[in-house]
Each structure stands twice: as structure tokens, then as C-alpha cells.
């Protein structure tokens, strides 16, 4: 896979010596959607700001398409588009003017055809002559995306694109992002919505307290980190777990009718066969067995808890 962004030993501290990013190493591959997942204040926006030149780097290197963001900042920044978290606009500007301004600010020649296609793709063409302040929140977010894409960047940063957005609009935004990926744009998405990361991303990086705790393909992450729970339904009330079953660390359900057993589905020996044999020996009669898989949210909580 071709690396489009390379971050090495990145450190960012503020004037009060607060460490915002600590030894961040990250490679982002061309054409992927990578989600930076972390709680508020984890360092997601700082990381984006460092890559885009909005905040200064304390130490370390960042390269975009091989261009250093400090030494070759012009070339590096040409490859980047950024959609900020806040809806920040000149409120009295027309949609078409603000998008054209962004394109020219990035040193690109006017291209009416490209801007027309872009606005049509984002369902903004019929709003092109409206002033921004008259648009709805969702439309404003689209204008920000249009501005970020106006200079045809290879990489698009979306900082919390669906923060404070209603469910319908969120789904709409997800479709837009997926379509952008199909058109070849690499997307870096920061979010604290696990559902969003789970639905959108090819890879997920979990960030907390300025450190990247882990990064992996979404499916690998779920497979690697996830736990399954075997729920054993019995026909009698269980008040106490038999000594013979002690090694399995079983739990009794609230209604005292089920036993619950956590296991890792990726291990060769899950212990299920042994457990069921031991249960049979104790004389407990089984009615049914069922498994339940942990989702990304539970994995995320687990990772943060261990940090």
C-alpha cells in the first residue's frame, strides 16, 4: 500500500508545558478512510492541526506525499483539504464565491467546470448564489467540504464531521464521505462516535492523552480485541457456582437462570467443550446456549480503561 502521510516521533507541547501529543508514529495509506477515535481532549484535532500547519510542531517529522510539512509546506499543503469541526464562515458570502476563494487561495486557477461538478456532487449547485448564513447546518457542513475539496486535494481531513448533527443528516454525511473515498480521496476522520468509526473506516487508530494506543484494520481490531460471551440457559435456579466450575470464572445472570462465560473466539482452545462437559457432570440441565459478541464500543472502553 502506498503511504500518503508519514508521521514520525511527533511531539506537541503547549506553552504551559502541557503535552498534547507524545511520540506519535503513524502511516496513512492512499485511498483509505482512517478514523482517529478518542475521547474529547485526546489530541485528535491537535494531530490534524499539526499536519495541516494550523499549529506548530514541537518536534518530529510529518510528510505528506513525501513533502515535509515544515520545509516543503507549499507542496505538502497543496495535497491537503481540511473540514473543521466548527461551522466557520464569512456569513455574508455567497456559496460559489467562498468555494472559488478557497480554490484560488490554494494557488489553483479558476475552473468553473470543476467547481460546478463539485457543487453538484454535494447537492449545492442550486444553492450556489445563496449567502451562507441562509443555509441549514447540514448545507453549511457541505459547503465546508466543498471548500476543502475545491483545490482537488489528495487527502481530506474531516474533524468531527457529524458532531451535533441529527441522525438523518449524519447518515447523509456518511454517504457523502463514502462517495468521496470512491472518487480516490484519502480520508482522515476524527470522531468520538464509535458507530461512525465502525461504519466508515478501513482502519482505526485509538488515541488518548496524546498517544496512539493502537492502530489496526477495523475488522482485525474487532477480531483481535473482541470477546464473546457464551450464555448457558438452564431450567433451574442457580444460587451458587459449583466448585468444579470455579476455574471457568462463570457469572450468574440476574434472573439466576443463566450462566455466562467469557472467551476469546480467536484462541485455539476456547474451553467451551470442557465447560459443557463439567456442567453436565454437575447435573445442571441445559435448555439452550447462545453467544454474544462485544462491539467496538466495548473494545474502545476496554482500551481506554487499560491506558
Amino acid at each position, binding site marked *: 500500500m502506498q503511504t500518503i502521510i508519514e508521521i514520525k516521533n511527533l511531539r506537541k507541547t503547549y506553552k504551559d508545558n502541557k503535552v498534547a501529543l507524545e511520540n506519535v508514529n503513524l502511516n496513512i495509506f492512499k485511498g483509505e478512510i482512517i478514523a482517529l477515535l478518542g475521547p474529547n481532549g485526546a489530541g485528535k484535532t491537535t494531530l490534524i492541526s499539526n499536519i495541516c500547519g494550523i499549529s506548530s510542531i514541537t518536534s518530529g517529522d510529518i510528510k505528506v506525499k513525501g513533502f515535509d510539512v515544515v520545509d516543503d509546506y507549499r507542496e*505538502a499543503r497543496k495535497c491537503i483539504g*481540511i473540514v473543521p469541526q466548527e461551522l*466557520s464562515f*464569512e456569513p*455574508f458570502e455567497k456559496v460559489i464565491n467562498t468555494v472559488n476563494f478557497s480554490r*484560488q*487561495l*490554494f*494557488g489553483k486557477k479558476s475552473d468553473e467546470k470543476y467547481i460546478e461538478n463539485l457543487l453538484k456532487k454535494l447537492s449545492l449547485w442550486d444553492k450556489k448564489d445563496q449567502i451562507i448564513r441562509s443555509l441549514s447546518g447540514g448545507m453549511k457542513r457541505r459547503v465546508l467540504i466543498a471548500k476543502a475539496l475545491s483545490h482537488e486535494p489528495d487527502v481530506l481531513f474531516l474533524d468531527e464531521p457529524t458532531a451535533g448533527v441529527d441522525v438523518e443528516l449524519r447518515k447523509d454525511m456518511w454517504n457523502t464521505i463514502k462517495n468521496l473515498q470512491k472518487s480516490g480521496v484519502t480520508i482522515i476522520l476524527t470522531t468520538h462516535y464509535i458507530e461512525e468509526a465502525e461504519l466508515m473506516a478501513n482502519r482505526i487508530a485509538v488515541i488518548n492523552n496524546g498517544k496512539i494506543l493502537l492502530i489496526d484494520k477495523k475488522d482485525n481490531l474487532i477480531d483481535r480485541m473482541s470477546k464473546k460471551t457464551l450464555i448457558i440457559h438452564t431450567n433451574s435456579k442457580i444460587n451458587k457456582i459449583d466448585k468444579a466450575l470455579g476455574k471457568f470464572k462463570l457469572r450468574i445472570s440476574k434472573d439466576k437462570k443463566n450462566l455466562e462465560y467469557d472467551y476469546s473466539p480467536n484462541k485455539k482452545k476456547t474451553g467451551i467443550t470442557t465447560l459443557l462437559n463439567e456442567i453436565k457432570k454437575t447435573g445442571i440441565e441445559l435448555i439452550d446456549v447462545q453467544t454474544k459478541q462485544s462491539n467496538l464500543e466495548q473494545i474502545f472502553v476496554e482500551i481506554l480503561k487499560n491506558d
Partner: protein
Amino acid sequence: MINFRSIKAIYIFEMSRTFRTLIQSLISPILSTVLYFIVFGTAIGNNINFTNEIPYGAFIVPGLVILTISMQSVNNASFGIFFPKFLGTTYEILSAPISYVEIVIGYVGASATKSFCLGLLILMTSTFFVDLDIKFPILMLCMLLLSCVSFSLLGFIIGIVSDNFEQINFVPMIIITPLVFLGGSFYTIDVLPDLWQTITLFNPIFYLVSGFRYSFFGTGEVNILISIFSISLFILLCIIIIWKIFKTGYKIKT
């Protein structure tokens, strides 16, 4: 290589703001100047005779132009850069492939252009009230341009360091206006008591007004070269401060 397209984008964007706010940008300062001419030039001015054969109405023209363009340059440039900060749109400027010098050229260039045009409009307006015979027109245009650039640079600095609208208005209202009024815009300093004459010599606007007046009438209170030197020094000082601001990212970058 200079990124002309980006400079042009900022310049045109800033200029277009002028046309959206035409009353505030042009008509209001011209109206104020007309009122000054009526009150000081015509009503009171006919009774003033300390200006060495120059009619008082004509004498105050350079001072009035400096008064207006200094205020407008500072306002235009400070709002130009403060507004994106206020609205949160500086992210776009900072993430664009544009150098700090190019950013300054875009914002300060637009602000200076607006003030320069306004200065010319005020001069044209003044001809309705007084007979104006400009002795060194090229020098006058150069002095006007230098004044617009210097105050625009100052405004740019104010726009960056200000955290709110009150601070933006503080410098023009509390510092520049008194300095212009006390810098010999409406009188020659020899009418002042000795102490105030000495104090006036520490007022940078005094040299600016004197130099500008020299380009009109061929006579000023200090040598024209001292005036040009003072403006150049002021511009240099502003450039050093801006360079330092961008180098450290003060109030721009986190």
C-alpha cells in the same frame, strides 16, 4: 516563488468587503470630512490667520486626509485579519500553501488600496470647498501611499493581537485620533506653548502631517527628508513586529 494567485484571492476577497459595506467604507468618512471642512474650513477658518498666507481651509486638507486615512487604514487592516480570527476561518489561511509575507501583502495591500482611494476621494471633495494647488503631486501621491501602507501594517498588528472588538477599537480611538489631532493637523505647532511644542516633537504623526503638507504647499514644519525617514522607520518597525508575530505564531497558531 511568490504565490500571486493566493495573494490575489485574499486581496479581492478583502476588496469585495468594501463594496458590501460601501456606506461604512466610503460614504461615512467622506461625510465626516465634509463636515470638518464646513465647520473648521469655512465657518471658523475665515477668522484664523496663523498659516502664512495659506487659506486655513486649504491648510487643514493634508491633516484631514491623514486623519481619515490613518483611521480607515487601521480599521480596514485590523478588521480584515481580526474577522477571520473571530469567525474561526483563519484555519483556511494557515493551511493554505501561502507564506506569511504573501498573507501580509494580501491583507495590507487591500487595506492600503481602500485607504488610498479614500484619500484621493477626500482630496477631490476638498476641491469643492477650497482652491487646492498641489505643488508636488507625485510626492503627495507617494506620501499618501506610504501613509496608507504604514497605518495598514499597524492595523494588521492590532488585528492579530486583539482578542475582542473593544481592543480593536482601542488603538484607533484612544491613541491614533489624539495623536493626529495633536500632531499639527489643524494648526502649526508654533502656536502652542513651549512645553507642548516639545511634546509634539515626540508625536510620529506630526512628521507625517508635516511631510504631507510639504507636498501640497512646498513648506512644512520639519524637513521633508526627516518626514520620509520617520515614515520609513515606522514601516520598518511594523514589518519587524509582524515578522516576529508570524515567526512565533503569537495569537495566530497554538
